[in-house]
């Protein structure tokens, strides 16, 4: 039987999730520490362009060591669970595919949807824990009037991670705890010190965990070589908005929408990447002014605070992690299609990125920009 008092903590070996484990332990909960082994850092290490295995990244031995030390310190059982196959299938391969077709994917959302809040929750329930706590900065609340679980922005806005969590289902939210939602990062570090955690001063991790140094190009090269796949032809033409060919480029995966530098053509006025056409391998360039647009469409949507979008709704929409949410109206235009109309034109709306809709602090839902 699941034990209401047993809770699994997803431990990454960082300060946040370690502190969560210590907090819940101090509350007298039965805490089980789990770390997901998602990617073998040594797998591509040493291949051309790839550094030797580096410490201090997701799934690195150092992080597992740190998590294990925390578990020992606070006296909880701790296990590493292997989800490398799922991670490669659901996160790495889609990432590679998206990148090669000229979109700019965000693997963290995929990882949250498919691994952390799906696989890990399943493992947690299998081993007798009813819910999973993580070190994300976000809040979960139950809205009695609507009978829905809500995902809300955290107290520490600078650490807000709701952008990466828009895919959580009602079932997942009902079994998830974000104990840091009401705390600031300095408070978390203070608590870590109080609990005697050796890693209280460990720096935050930033980059995509399986791409060392954030170098996507080298990662793609090494990964495809390992898979015995040829790097597909991605070079093509640079064209203007009216279809004029003004040059050639080295590969669509080298560009992101909004990019200015590195186009390799000299013209009078500065040129920006406006659009990347995966099918024709064309990169469309133009004036800064053409980068702005008021509308976009999202697909693979997930709604959280509402069951369905029956009528147009006023929200704020975030189109990048570091983007300031901007006022917009969302309306349903198809079975799984939402049209977003911003009040003001937005710069560099990028297909492949997530768009997350907010109603104040509450996450209404989100989808993938198409």
């Amino acid at each position, binding site marked *: 039987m699941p034990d209401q008092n047993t809770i699994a903590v997803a431990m990454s070996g960082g300060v946040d999730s370690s502190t969560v484990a210590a907090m819940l332990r101090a509350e007298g909960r039965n805490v*089980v520490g789990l*770390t997901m*082994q998602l990617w073998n850092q040594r797998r591509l290490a040493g291949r051309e362009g790839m550094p030797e295995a580096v410490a201090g990244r997701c*799934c690195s*031995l150092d992080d*597992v060591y740190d998590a*294990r030390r925390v578990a020992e310190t606070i006296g909880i*059982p701790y*296990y*590493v*669970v*292997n989800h*490398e196959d799922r991670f490669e299938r659901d996160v790495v391969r889609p990432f590679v595919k998206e990148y090669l077709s000229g979109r700019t994917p965000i693997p963290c959302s995929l990882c949250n949807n498919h691994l952390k809040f799906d696989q890990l929750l*399943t*493992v947690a*329930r*299998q*081993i*007798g824990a009813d819910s999973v706590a993580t070190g994300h900065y976000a809040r979960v609340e139950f809205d009695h009037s609507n009978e829905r679980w809500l995902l809300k922005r955290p107290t520490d806005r600078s650490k807000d991670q709701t952008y990466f969590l828009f895919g959580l289902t009602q079932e997942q939210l009902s079994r998830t705890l974000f104990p840091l939602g009401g705390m600031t990062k300095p408070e978390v570090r203070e608590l870590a010190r109080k609990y005697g955690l050796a890693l209280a001063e460990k720096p935050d991790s930033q980059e995509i965990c399986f791409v060392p140094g954030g170098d996507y190009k080298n990662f793609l090269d090494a990964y495809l070589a390992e898979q015995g796949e040829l790097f597909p032809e991605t070079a093509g033409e640079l064209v203007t908005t009216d279809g004029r060919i003004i040059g050639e480029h080295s590969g669509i995966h080298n560009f992101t929408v909004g990019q200015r530098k590195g186009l390799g053509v000299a013209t009078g006025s500065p040129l920006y990447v406006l659009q990347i056409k995966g099918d024709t391998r064309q990169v469309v360039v133009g004036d800064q002014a053409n980068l702005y647009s008021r509308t976009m469409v999202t697909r693979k949507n997930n709604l959280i605070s509402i069951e369905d979008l029956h009528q147009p709704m006023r929200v704020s929409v975030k189109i990048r992690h570091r983007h300031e949410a901007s006022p917009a109206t969302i309306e349903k235009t198809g079975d799984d299609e939402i049209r977003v109309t911003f009040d003001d034109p937005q710069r560099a709306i990028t297909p492949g990125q997530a768009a997350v809709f907010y109603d104040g602090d509450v996450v209404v839902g989100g989808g993938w920009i198409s």
Partner: protein
Amino acid sequence: MRRVYLDNNATTPVLPEVLDAMRPYYAEHFGNASSIHHHGQETRGAVERARESVATLLGCRPAEVVFTSGGTEADNLAIFGLVQSGDHVITSTIEHHAVLNSCKHLHEKGVEVTFLPVDGRGLVDPDDLRRALRPNTKLVTIMFANNETGVIQPVEEFGKICAEADVYFHSDAVQAASKIPIRVKEIGCDLLSISGHKFNAPQGVGALYVRKGTTLDPLFFGGSHERSRRAGTENVPGIVGLGKAAELAVKALANGEDTEMASLRDRLERAILGSVESAGVNGAGAPRVPNTTNIYFDYIEGEALVITLDLKGLAVSTGAACSSGAIEPSHVLTAMGLLPDRARASIRFSLGKQNTSGDVDFATQLLPASVERLRELSPLYNRKSPVPS
């Protein structure tokens, strides 16, 4: 919480008699066995007595026993001590990583290596070995008993084939020692590895049988310890412990304790298979060491079952842990032809001297409900009838 340990193929507790034998060699008889004075003579005597006990366990001469830091070092010494560039090596796909990764390393360095397959029961076919021999074959290294399934290889047949071909034969007997009788002369092997902590001696000590006349290059260079085969001051307390454990193992085998162990294991197997459906024994049909059973529970993740059981006080294991502690799919079960799902759904139970029938009951009472819960939450489980929510 009551805790029951059924993971004795990973390691075993040191027996009280073994600990008692070791204790004086930490502070009281602390001498360096190479010293010429009284203190050295005391420990030298203890080391040589232990060597005699190990020789009795293996059926060889004391001078043929080289003490090492454990099974891994013994395997490495056998392999790297013999093989040189230009040689050909034959091993199997189900070896312990101490042998498998040593052979892979040799292969990467340009040595020819043949990895022999196993059948569905986990057995290497002697005819495959015969066919794999080449004029430059230097070494055949095939394990005695498998750590995951307990399956015993026909090592005597391998020994004959190697003798006829005049090829060195090494066997990793880490999981066989003390569980079944080992007579190196009957096997006809030139080298054989054992590890102390797999049979109630402490961790950090093992031995390699080296047939008289076999020339081995050492792994370490230094003093002339162990007849210049293994430099480094002897781990005297560990060696004394290994000797005592060997002595106890010889007695236990003479008293038929291996048969008792087998009946306890068989009871465990029967009880589990009788109470859990879609489960079976991996390696059934092959001879197995008496303490080991490897059982698949279809539709579950073995990893989750191991964690579930551990949280309830039962220690068992699955596959092999990688450096992070995560579980990797078993290369042994995969080599036996198990599909990945079934390999991942397999659990090893391994009994030890300390286990009682009460321990077996504890395990068989826990298992059905734990497996059922995992199956309920498994996306793989195609339920026969809907279950009320």
